[in-house]
C-alpha cells in the first residue's frame, strides 16, 4: 500500500514533468514548471545515490551484528574531511585541473583510506569487546563514539565550514536525452549504481560474500563451519568504510563544502533509508535510499498547493512519517524479511 503511494507520488511528479509547459502561464495552479520538477527529480536521485552508499554501511553491519552503527555518519564525515586537505592542496596548485584523473584517484584513495581506518577502529575498540552485551550497551558506545568523532573533527579541523573544491570536469552540465543534467549529479548516480551492483555481486557470489551471509544468518554455526567470524565482521566494516569514503567525496563535491557536522544529517537520512528499504538487505538499502532521496526533494514540492506553511522545512518530517507508516505495516522494511524484526 505504502509502496503504491510512493509509486503514485513519483508518477505524479513524472506526469507534471512531461505535461506542464516549460513556462508557467498566468493563473497556473502549480507554481512549478516542468523544468523545476525535472530538477527536483534529478536532485532527489543524486541525493538518493549518496544516501544509498551510506545506507549500505548501516545495512551490512546491522545484517551481521544486529546493531546500529550510530557512528557511521562520522565515518563518512571523517573520510570526506581528510580528503578535503588533499583536494584543497591540489586545487591550490592547479593539479586538480591539469591532471584531474590522478588527482581524483588520490583524493578518493585518501577518503577511502581514512574512512576504512575509522570504521575498523570503531569495530575493534567500541563494538568487538561488547559483542555479547545487552543491545543497549553497544548502542551507548556507538552514540559515544559518534559524539567523540564529531567533536574530535571539530577540534582538529575547526568549527567553521570549509569550501570543498569541485574539479573543472564536473562543473557544468551534460545534455542527456534532451535533459540538461548537472555533471556531478550524473556522476553520482552512475558511480552509486555501479558500486551497488558490484557489492550485490560480491555478497551473493564470492567466497567472502557467502561467509558474510553465513555469519548474518547464524554466527555460531558459521564459526563451526570454519568461518573466521572476526575477519568477516572486520571486512564488513571495511566495505562500509569504502562506500562511505566514496560517498563522502561525492557529497562534499556536490555541495562544495564540508564541516564537522556534515556526517549527521546524511547519516540519519541514510539510516532511515536502510530501515525503510529493509535493513540487512543490499537491494533494500538501495531502494530505500532512492525513495528517501525522492521523498526529500519531491515530498515538499507536492505539498505546495495545499496551503501548508513553509513546506520546505518539512522534508525530514515527511520522511520520518513515511518511515513510521512503513514500519507499522511492514516492520521488516519494504524488502526486508519478517525475521528482521526479531532482535
Amino acid at each position, binding site marked *: 500500500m505504502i509502496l503504491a503511494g510512493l509509486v503514485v507520488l513519483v508518477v505524479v511528479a513524472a506526469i507534471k514533468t512531461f505535461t506542464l509547459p516549460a513556462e508557467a502561464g498566468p493563473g497556473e495552479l502549480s507554481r512549478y514548471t516542468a523544468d523545476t520538477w525535472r530538477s527536483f527529480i534529478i536532485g532527489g536521485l543524486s541525493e538518493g545515490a549518496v544516501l544509498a552508499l551510506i545506507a549500505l554501511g548501516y545495512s551490512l553491519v546491522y545484517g551481521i551484528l544486529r546493531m546500529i552503527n550510530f557512528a557511521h555518519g562520522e565515518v563518512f564525515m571523517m573520510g570526506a574531511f581528510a580528503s578535503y586537505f588533499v583536494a584543497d592542496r591540489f586545487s591550490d596548485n592547479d593539479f586538480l585541473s591539469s591532471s584531474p584523473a590522478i588527482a581524483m584517484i588520490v583524493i578518493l584513495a585518501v577518503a577511502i583510506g581514512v574512512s576504512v581506518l575509522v570504521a575498523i577502529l570503531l569495530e575493534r575498540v567500541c563494538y568487538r569487546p561488547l559483542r555479547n552485551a545487552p543491545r543497549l550497551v553497544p548502542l*551507548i558506545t556507538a552514540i559515544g563514539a559518534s*559524539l567523540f568523532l564529531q567533536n574530535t573533527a571539530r577540534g*582538529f579541523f575547526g568549527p567553521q565550514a570549509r569550501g570543498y573544491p569541485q574539479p573543472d570536469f564536473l562543473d557544468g552540465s551534460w545534455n542527456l536525452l534532451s535533459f540538461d543534467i548537472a555533471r556531478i549529479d550524473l556522476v553520482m548516480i552512475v558511480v552509486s549504481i555501479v558500486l551497488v551492483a558490484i557489492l550485490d555481486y560480491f555478497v551473493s557470489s564470492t567466497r567472502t560474500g557467502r561467509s558474510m551471509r553465513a555469519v548474518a544468518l547464524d554466527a555460531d554455526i558459521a564459526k563451526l563451519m570454519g568461518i573466521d567470524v572476526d575477519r568477516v565482521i572486520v571486512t564488513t566494516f571495511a566495505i562500509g568504510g569504502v562506500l562511505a569514503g566514496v560517498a563522502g567525496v561525492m557529497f562534499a563535491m556536490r555541495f562544495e563544502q564540508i564541516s564537522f557536522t556534515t556526517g549527521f544529517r546524511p547519516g540519519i537520512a541514510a539510516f532511515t533509508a536502510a530501515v525503510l528499504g529493509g535493513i540487512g538487505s543490499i537491494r533494500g538499502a538501495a531502494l530505500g535510499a532512492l525513495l528517501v532521496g525522492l521523498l526529500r526533494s519531491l515530498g515538499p514540492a507536492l505539498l505546495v498547493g495545499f496551503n501548508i506553511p513553509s513546506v520546505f522545512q518539512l522534508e525530514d518530517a515527511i520522511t520520518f512519517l513515511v518511515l513510521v507508516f512503513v514500519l507499522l505495516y511492514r516492520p521488516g522494511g519494504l524488502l526486508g524479511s519478517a525475521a528482521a524484526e526479531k*532482535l
Partner: protein
Amino acid sequence: MIKLQRPWILGLGAASLVALGLSIIHLLNKEKAGFWPFLAILAIAGLAGATLTAQRAGEPVLIVNEGSRAHRTWQTAGWGIFAFFVVATPYLLDSFRVQQVNKSMYFAVAVLGVNLIIGYSGLISLGHGAFMGVGAFLSVILVEDYGFKLWQTLFVIIPLAFVIGLIVGIPALRIKGLYLALVTFALSYAFPTLLKIEGIDKRTGGDLGRNISLDKQVQPGRLKGLLGLNGLDAPAQEQIYKYWLMALVTGISFLLVRNIIKSRAGRAVIAIKENQIGAAVSGVPLTTYKVITFGISAVFASVGGWLYALLFSEANPNTFGPLLAISLLLALVLGGVYTLQGALVGSLLYVFLDDLRTRVTLTSVAGWRPSFFQIAEGSPLTQAVLGLVLILIAFFAPGGVVFIARKVRASLIRVIPTIPTADVVASAAVDSPMSEPEVATTH
C-alpha cells in the same frame, strides 16, 4: 544480631565518603583547585581500599539483622546525613552552583521518565527530549499568551503530554528494539524543525525561542522568611527558592516512579521486559501496558520540561534537539539503568561533568596544545569528552555509578533480611484484593 569486625575498615570507608563529599563541594565553589583534587583521589582510593580489604576477608565488615535496633539506628543516621545534605546544599554553595543543582533536578525528573521506558520496560527511546520540549513550550506559551500562572500550566501539560506519549507509543507496539530507537530519535531530530515552521513560530518564537516576561517569572514569595532567604542577595534568593520548589517536584516524582514500579502494573511492565511471551502467557496485556508506560514516561519528561521553564524562564526550539535526547541517555547510563537512584545521581553527575568540561581547557589537561589543533588556546574541551565518558562507562561500569556504590556497600555491610513468618504470608494472601497466589508470594 549485630557483628562488627575490623571497624577500622568501616571507619576508613566513612571517612573517605566524607572527604569525597567535602572535596567535591570545595571543587565546585572554588575556581582554584588547590589540594582538593588530591583529597578526592585519596578518598576514592580509600573507598576502593576498604572495599578490597573487605572483599579479601570474604565477609562484610558489618552484619546486622533487618529491622533490628542496630539496623534502625544505622538507617536513621544515613537518612539524617542525606537530609542534612538536601537542606544544607543550597546554603553552602554560591548561587551559580545552586543553579546547577537545580539544573540537575529538572534533568533528573526527565531521566526518571526515560528510565521507566529504557530501564523498566526495555523499550529504547531517544525521543524524550521532544517531550521535555512539549512541557517547556506549553508552560511558556500558556503563561505568556493565556495568562496562566506557572503552576496552573501543569494541569494542561500533564494530560496533554500523556496523550502525546500514547500517540508516540502506539507505533512502539509494532516497531521493536533498535527500530524504535531510530523512530524516536527521528522525533527528537524533527522536533526543533517542527517548532520553527511558519505559523507555529508565532507561538514558539522560532529560532530565538521565547521568554517568560519578568513580571510573570517565579519570584521568591511568602516563604522567604521560612527558607532563610532574607538578607541574601537577589540571585541567591531566586535560586534557593527555586531549589526548594524543584526539590519538592523531584521528590514527588521520585516517589511516584518508585511506587509505579512496585505496583502490580509496574511488575507487569518489568515482566514484559524480561520475557515478553512469558508475560503474555501469564495474562499481562502487552499492548495496554506498553502504551501506557510510554504515556507515563512522557509525562515525567514533560514535567522535566516544565521545571526547565521554571528555572530558566525561557524555551528555545534548539535546546530540545537530538543532543538533549543523547544527554538524557548519558545521564541515565552514568547513574545506572534500571535503578531508581540512578536518575538522580546520574543527572547530578552529568550536569557537573558537563560544567567541568567547559571550565577545563585542553592545555590545562595535557600541558600542551597540538599545533594542528584548531581550537583556540583557552577554549574549553569539546563534547568529545562526553562521548569518551559514554564509551568508558559502557566498558567499565555498565551498571552505572549506583551499581558500583551498591557493590561497595554490599562488601562492607550485610543486612540479613527477616523471613516473614507463615501467618504473615497467609494473611497477606487473604487480604490482597487480587488474591492470585503468584502476586502474594513473589513479592
